[in-house]
């Protein structure tokens, strides 16, 4: 029974991790139809922010949870203004440009800080599930993922900004006619997506090696989960993460992490073949 408890705990953690790494990408893709291939590097920047800040003596929680989204959100804003905004409506070109941004960021960070793997230590201890030990930090990841999901939901549902955001997403011309500047909304959305990626990087920094190329490890998983989730950002991300996260953790435990990853990706490709619009393209279409 202890083992089942541990396994369930791992599954929940896996799902939460997937939610964290996917949400920022989902926001940008869902709202703007831009596949942001620099997403992994935004996470990397978030992780670097956390490492640098905690190294400079900033409180570890502030360094992990507050600074990364702010810093990366700002970087996202700058990139939107300087690169992305010239490419709206040209999906392939934005993919290419963000890929270029991704390579450029890897190169920039390597040049500045060297290709060195850094780490922050986990700020909390461990606890026991029966006779098995588990990291308490996993609970922090779960909490952060929940907070991000709920926060996004509240933002979209209850605030005026959320309303305008959804309106612009559905019909930018109509929104513009009603006095909204779609460009501003896109700018804010891109920055928001980047900030979420930064948060993911900050939260995951303590459990992964922080290096310039770390983003590549997440990118395929994040994409395929977004596409699997479909157009409804929050429900889709949640459902797809739940499905793929479970598959990944269970297969990993039974075999190896590699086969677990492969199972996740293969399952996602099959899902997209069956539901080309993703889960929420077919079901729960009215959800957020």
């Amino acid at each position: 029974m202890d083992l089942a408890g541990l396994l369930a705990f791992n599954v929940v953690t896996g799902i939460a991790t997937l939610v964290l790494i996917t949400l920022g990408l989902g926001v940008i893709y869902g709202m703007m139809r831009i596949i942001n291939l620099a997403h992994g590097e935004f996470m990397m920047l978030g992780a670097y922010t956390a490492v640098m800040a905690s190294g400079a003596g900033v409180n570890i929680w502030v360094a992990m949870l507050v600074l990364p989204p702010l810093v990366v959100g700002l970087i996202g804003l700058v990139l939107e203004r300087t690169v992305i905004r010239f490419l709206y409506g040209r999906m392939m070109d934005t993919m290419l440009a963000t890929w270029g941004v991704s390579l450029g960021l890897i190169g920039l960070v390597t040049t500045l800080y060297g290709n060195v793997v850094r780490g922050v230590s986990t700020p909390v201890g461990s606890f026991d599930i029966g006779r098995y030990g588990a990291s308490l930090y996993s609970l922090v990841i779960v909490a952060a993922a929940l907070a991000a999901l709920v926060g996004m939901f509240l933002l979209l549902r209850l605030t005026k900004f959320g309303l305008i955001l959804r309106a612009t997403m559905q019909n930018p011309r109509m929104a513009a006619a009603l006095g909204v500047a779609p460009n501003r909304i896109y700018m804010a959305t891109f920055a928001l997506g980047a900030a979420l990626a930064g948060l993911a990087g900050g939260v995951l920094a303590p459990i992964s090696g922080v290096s310039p190329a770390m983003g590549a490890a997440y990118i395929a998983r994040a994409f395929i989960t977004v596409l699997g989730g479909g157009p409804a950002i929050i429900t889709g991300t949640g459902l797809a993460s739940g499905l793929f996260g479970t598959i990944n953790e269970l297969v990993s435990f039974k075999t190896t992490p590699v086969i677990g990853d492969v199972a996740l990706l293969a399952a996602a490709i099959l899902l997209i073949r069956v539901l080309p619009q993703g889960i929420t393209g077919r079901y729960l279409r009215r959800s957020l």
Partner: protein
Amino acid sequence: MTQGGWSRRQALRLGLSAAAGTVAMPFVARNGLAAEPIKLGSLLDGSGALGLEGKRMIETTEYAVELLNKAGGLIGRPIQLVAYDTQSTMQLYTQYAQQLALKDKVDVIQGGITSASREAIRPIFGRSKTLYFYNTQYEGGVCDRNVFCTGSTPAQTVNHIVDYGLKNWGKKAYIIAADYNYGHITASWMTKFMKDGGGSVAGTDFFPLDVTNFSSAISRIQQAQPELVLSALVGANHSGFYRQWDAAGMKAKIPLASSVFGLGDELTTMDTSTTNGIITCYGWYNDLDTPASKAFVSGMQAKFGADVTDLSELCTATYEGIMFWAEAVKKAGSVERDKVVAALETGITIDSPTGKVTMDPGTHHTIRNTYLARPKDRKWEILATFPNSFPADTGGACDLVKNPRMNKQFTPDMKG
């Protein structure tokens, strides 16, 4: 940079070669331009997943070449370093290996970090008949007349960590290793040494070098309930294992021993709670308290700054590789490959930071001291010394004096 033999391209090249150029300058200034330089090629990863280890090895190479040039070069000629950064990519290893052998036509090559990179470039140098030194602690067994290995091998190191585990911790081990030839062969050695010592192996898992999340692995280990864990995890991404192991509270429950931990900057970047007590065994530790060892550390710090506190066996092995070659060139009075190999096969001994080291003629591996140590508050606490260890893993089957044409890599015989 106007000295003859320097092409425009080399002159334009920034970084390493430029540094090497300035290294060679004082010598040239003193002795004029009479002698054509001997070319020493270096292939190491200055960046990428292995950049951390590689950077120090590159610095050691520069340091050793500088020492030789300050002492007047070799057989009256200065040494010119031709170095390429392979950036932890196999493609660049192939590319630059061909460049060193065919274009730069260097006299000797020192380099390669992972066993994968060694196996990629070894055939190239075999074909071009360029002498090759592989200076990394590795899984042992390479038997090739053109290749000399100065790093320690499992029979000199891994057996000691396994013995320590069997004596102090228990008989049931779980092995986790990197998923490439180093990890697989080292895991076989661990298994063999465990069984030879009357222990058992509860399970073995391999992880590709890009794996960073070990939560499922930690669950599996707990399920198997071993009394100790033997790790041959390699590289930056795998360092996450030690953090996650600590975070899951496992350090207090199951002790760890590793065949590669601490060769990078683990001691300076990880928490002491994560690193303390992990048992390792290498040919050298930077906290080794001998005059030669201290001189090496202070020499490196004088050249590259006081923050050079993460030197490891990889650095001293690189140093030894260059010094063995230099001794042999002096002895042979030539840089021709066959003469240098013959000189190396006379059983040359050098004084190195690690103590006296002898090149074993039969295996082209070193007979050396090894040390057992564990991290304690960012320092190495040395627990035992094993003097003059013979590379028995390679030595059982490989005799290049008798069979100079032999060219293969021996792996542990699991039937025994």
